[in-house]
């Protein structure tokens, strides 16, 4: 075989058309996806916005702007009375996260494939609990706990706790599944029991990640706890609801500003806390 023929075999000549055709073919499936998404969007728009909306009742653009304009203004007199609910909201978030973290310990342990004590039962059980916790909205959880333990902060704490379990446990379990098995083996080889293996082999490896997830969830819980009052679980949500019902729209704006302040503070703390952990 001559060297010329091998060279030809190795490098078949590409034409500009080949390249363009290849691109066209590669983009084909994507285009189908886009068309599909656009069609779905049109359908949804038709159902939700065009058919469902009572345009006549909403009135002209001016009416809408007028309705929105009612919120433009701040009821400064309300602020002093907001301090206590703000504190309450903040505390509900802290306690809820704490209780959630406590529930998470068994959930994450059972839900990580490599450390779960009895895989055929404990693993699916933990995964089910995580999905359950995440799939139900905090408002629904709060309603449930309000009906179970009565109005008040406790219902909010429990709702937040149960709601946070899913995410924290899922992330923690994933972190546990990713650990380096070496140290675990080393602790096992020194004769440590199952608990010591968790404590010395697993926990130090995953602690920073888990802490950062907890701080993240805590920040989200502040945001959540600000609305739990809407269904009677205490905090800023209750004040919001009251302002809305008495048509004090400027007061509503004040409450929203209070929420924003609280959340900004939480975000700031969370930013530095996560930086410190990692």
């Amino acid at each position: 075989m001559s060297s010329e023929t091998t060279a030809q075999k190795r490098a078949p000549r590409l034409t500009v058309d080949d390249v363009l055709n290849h691109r066209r073919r590669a983009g084909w499936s994507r285009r189908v996806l886009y068309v599909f998404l656009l069609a779905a969007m049109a359908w949804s728009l038709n159902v939700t916005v065009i058919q469902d909306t009572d345009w006549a009742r909403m009135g002209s653009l001016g009416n809408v702007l007028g309705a929105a304009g009612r919120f433009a203004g701040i009821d400064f007199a309300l602020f002093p009375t907001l301090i206590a609910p703000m504190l309450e909201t903040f505390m509900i978030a802290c306690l809820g996260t704490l209780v959630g973290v406590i529930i998470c310990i068994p959930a994450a342990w059972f839900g990580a494939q490599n450390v779960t004590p009895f895989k055929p039962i404990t693993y699916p059980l933990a995964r089910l609990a995580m999905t359950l916790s995440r799939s139900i909205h905090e408002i629904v959880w709060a309603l449930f706990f309000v009906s179970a333990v009565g109005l008040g902060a406790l219902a909010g704490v429990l709702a937040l706790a149960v709601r946070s379990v899913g995410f924290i446990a899922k992330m923690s379990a994933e972190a546990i599944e990713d650990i380096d098995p070496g140290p675990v083996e080393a602790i096992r080889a020194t004769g440590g029991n199952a608990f010591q293996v968790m404590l010395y082999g697993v926990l130090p490896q995953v602690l920073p990640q888990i802490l950062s997830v907890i701080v993240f969830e805590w920040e989200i819980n502040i945001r959540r706890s600000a609305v739990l009052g809407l269904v009677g679980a205490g905090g800023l949500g209750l004040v919001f609801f009251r302002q809305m019902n008495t048509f004090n729209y400027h007061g509503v704006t004040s409450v929203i500003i209070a929420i924003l302040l609280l959340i900004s503070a939480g975000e700031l703390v969370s930013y530095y806390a996560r930086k410190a952990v990692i």
Partner: protein
Amino acid sequence: MNRPPQSPLVTPAGPSACHWSRFKFPDSLIRYASWISVLVFLTYTVEYLDIPLDRLLGMFGRMGTTLSTRYYPPDIGYTLDVGYLSYVVDTIHMAFLGAIFGLIASIPLAWFGSFNMSPSRRWLYPIARLITMSCRAVHEMIWAILFVAILGFGMLPGVLALTFFCTGFAGKLFAEEIEAIDVGPVEAMRASGANQLQVMAFGVFPQVRVAFTGIAIYTWDVAFRAATVVGFFGAGGMGWYLKRNILQVETERVAAILLSIIILVLISEIASAWARAKVMKMN
């Protein structure tokens, strides 16, 4: 505990070695002080929030009986009714639209609000950050109530509430993704004389495409969960059904509705996990 005798070491250690303590003076003091202040704060919290610790255990027992007697068995037939199912479909529509609009809005916001890529760090960056943060900070329920107050009952306020929610949610994740990119390709694009938009399209977008798709799918997931409850205050979807039955103490129907929500969320989660895995593989 029986501790067997240890083997002696051959050379005794110097005096420096004999004094070791886990607790070094300033560090351990700070650590203990912070632990104690956290504990004090938590105790005070329990006190302030008036949480009846003594009745807590009894409550859980009662909760168990409530669950088993009143919420069981769920009234499955109720959720198979056409009226209810049409509300489920509405919910899906709302979540879909909210997610799409939110994603569309969040892409420019993420671009302007990412520190490394923002066209103007002085103006656009803080404005974009502020918008994203406000969208995120205000809970979707509050958005829903506000839009209902402005636009009246219906699905339109629900869609808008979800849009704002998704904008905040995806905007933050997108911006973080952009801030984490490798600047090499970006510099290469800049060096070849590309303009801002071209740099985004050729230097940044290829790097974040897969992550963005994953986040987009995740956003849909979250939007659906939120969509199940925005109806509580009249913003459309199945939330309204849920609220009505809760108010009328139709607990078996509530149980059935919750069950249907869980199943739907599970389906959407499995589908999105599958889609995300597929996207990852395409990369």
